[in-house]
């Protein structure tokens, strides 16, 4: 046995003033894993399309058209501008309802997480809101506020708000009081305290609420449009259903799903990565 094995080399001795060394050599491994995963995802997509094609060739082409027929239909609907128009209207409603739900849900959630009395007062309402079927809210909004866009957006937002509240309340309860003490000790103005000490602690919760929210909102918007609007993807799906036009239904569904997935992948996820970059 040599002396080197008995004593650690000098560079290993650490005081609390030695900076933590960043992780080394994990990056190439990570890249390989990511590349492998990407290939797997592509294979999954190809398999899905092939299974669809197989099922379509076995089934009646009226009940299940093949992928190429749907693709051709998307082209035709786009050329006639019907699809872009309906899509734009629906996306507008999704955005409005999403914004209203996030804002209201975040404010109520922060208040409930911060003050126990507010929490005690609103908790029963929250349970009620979480359990009311979406359909009931939609019908009531149309009955009370008329068959208009405001009622439609409000109905969607009301369905979404309770889940945002629950998530944000969780975050507000987990806020570190010691960091808020720093803000008080240094007499920071409330705006600075809110934006740079309080809100950053809620970011992971807000992002979770936003991602879950987007997927819920765009599903409910279609129901709202089906029940009481005369334009939008939901309305159009209903018309196509009346004519038993499965190709059309699949064409609209596919485009809409792709747009929402793109919004999540190209807007929400990069935003989250930017806001939580300090963890990495």
């Amino acid at each position: 046995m040599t002396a080197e094995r008995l004593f650690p080399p000098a560079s290993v001795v650490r005081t609390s003033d030695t900076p933590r060394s960043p992780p080394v050599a994990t990056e190439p491994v990570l890249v390989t894993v990511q590349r492998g995963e990407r290939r797997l995802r592509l294979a999954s997509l190809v398999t899905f399309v092939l299974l669809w094609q197989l099922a379509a060739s076995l089934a009646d082409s009226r009940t299940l058209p093949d992928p190429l027929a749907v693709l051709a239909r998307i082209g035709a609907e786009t050329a006639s501008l019907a699809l872009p128009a309906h899509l734009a209207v629906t996306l507008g409603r999704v955005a409005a309802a999403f914004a209203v739900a996030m804002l209201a849900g975040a404010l109520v959630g922060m208040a409930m997480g911060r003050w126990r009395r507010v929490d005690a007062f609103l908790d029963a309402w929250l349970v009620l809101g979480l359990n009311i079927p979406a359909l009931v809210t939609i019908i009531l909004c149309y009955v009370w506020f008329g068959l208009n866009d405001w009622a439609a957006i409000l109905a969607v937002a009301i369905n979404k708000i309770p889940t945002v509240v629950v998530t944000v309340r969780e975050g507000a309860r987990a806020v570190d009081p010691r960091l808020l003490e720093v803000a008080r000790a240094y007499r920071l103005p409330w705006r600075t305290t809110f934006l740079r000490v309080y809100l950053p602690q809620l970011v992971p919760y807000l992002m979770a609420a936003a991602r879950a929210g987007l997927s819920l909102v765009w599903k409910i918007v279609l129901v709202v449009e089906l029940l009481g609007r005369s334009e939008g993807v939901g309305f159009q799906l209903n018309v196509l259903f009346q004519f038993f036009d499965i190709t059309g239904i699949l064409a609209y569904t596919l485009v809409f799903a792709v747009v929402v997935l793109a919004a999540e992948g190209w807007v929400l996820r990069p935003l989250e990565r930017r806001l939580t970059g300090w963890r990495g």
Partner: protein
Amino acid sequence: MLDIRVDAKRYPERGGRPHLALSALQMTVQRGEFVCVVGPSGCGKSTLLNIVGGLDRAFEGRVTMGGGFPEDVGFMFQEPRLMPWSSVLDNVLLVARGGERARLKARALELLRAMALGEVLDAYPGRLSGGMMRRVALARAFVNEPALLLMDEPFVSLDSPTADRLRAMLLAQWQRCGASVLFVTHDLREALTLADRVCFLSPAPGRVVLEFAVDLPRPRARAGAQLERLHAALLADHPELLAGLPAAQGDVTEGRPVA
């Protein structure tokens, strides 16, 4: 001059009678003076700092500095308490005030470089060592050149070379900006190394039971002969006073749980 008078500070205790943390506590800190507060665990040292720092307003008494409650304050806590989502520079700039942005930034940069943090200005605190995080917290405390600096055992759980380095940086900045300092510690040697005057608190309910002026020239070596003589003399003269202090058992500042 900082004038502290706490007639009583009670904590409501769940299920029992209220706990009296401080009682009839009176002390002053002259302008530019470095005062250490030493006392056994649980004697209300942190409570005292929270009161003077304006974090705890529910007490009977009065704290004044230049006619009003001290507002121009820097605060260093037991833990660094940096914002993990802000870079080193942004953590210091977060609390900086009193001037346009460019001037504040120049001041923050100068401080951080003086604390040998010039290489990690854009790093997030999670990447730093414990000692580096304390240095950022120290820079943050000085960036406004406050009239009063409150420090709550800021160097506990550091190894002694690192703590010594931080103490030297603290003294250098204090001598440069001339703040009054109220420094809480349970380590008598640390107090004797740093302070112009040491105030000893009694066990709870805490009040000042002895004030001791440290008449040694700076810089003082923590293990120097003069300081050792002073330390031994204090222990001999006031054994009952310091019985509760861990410093009486020798230099064991590392790894002790923080009360």
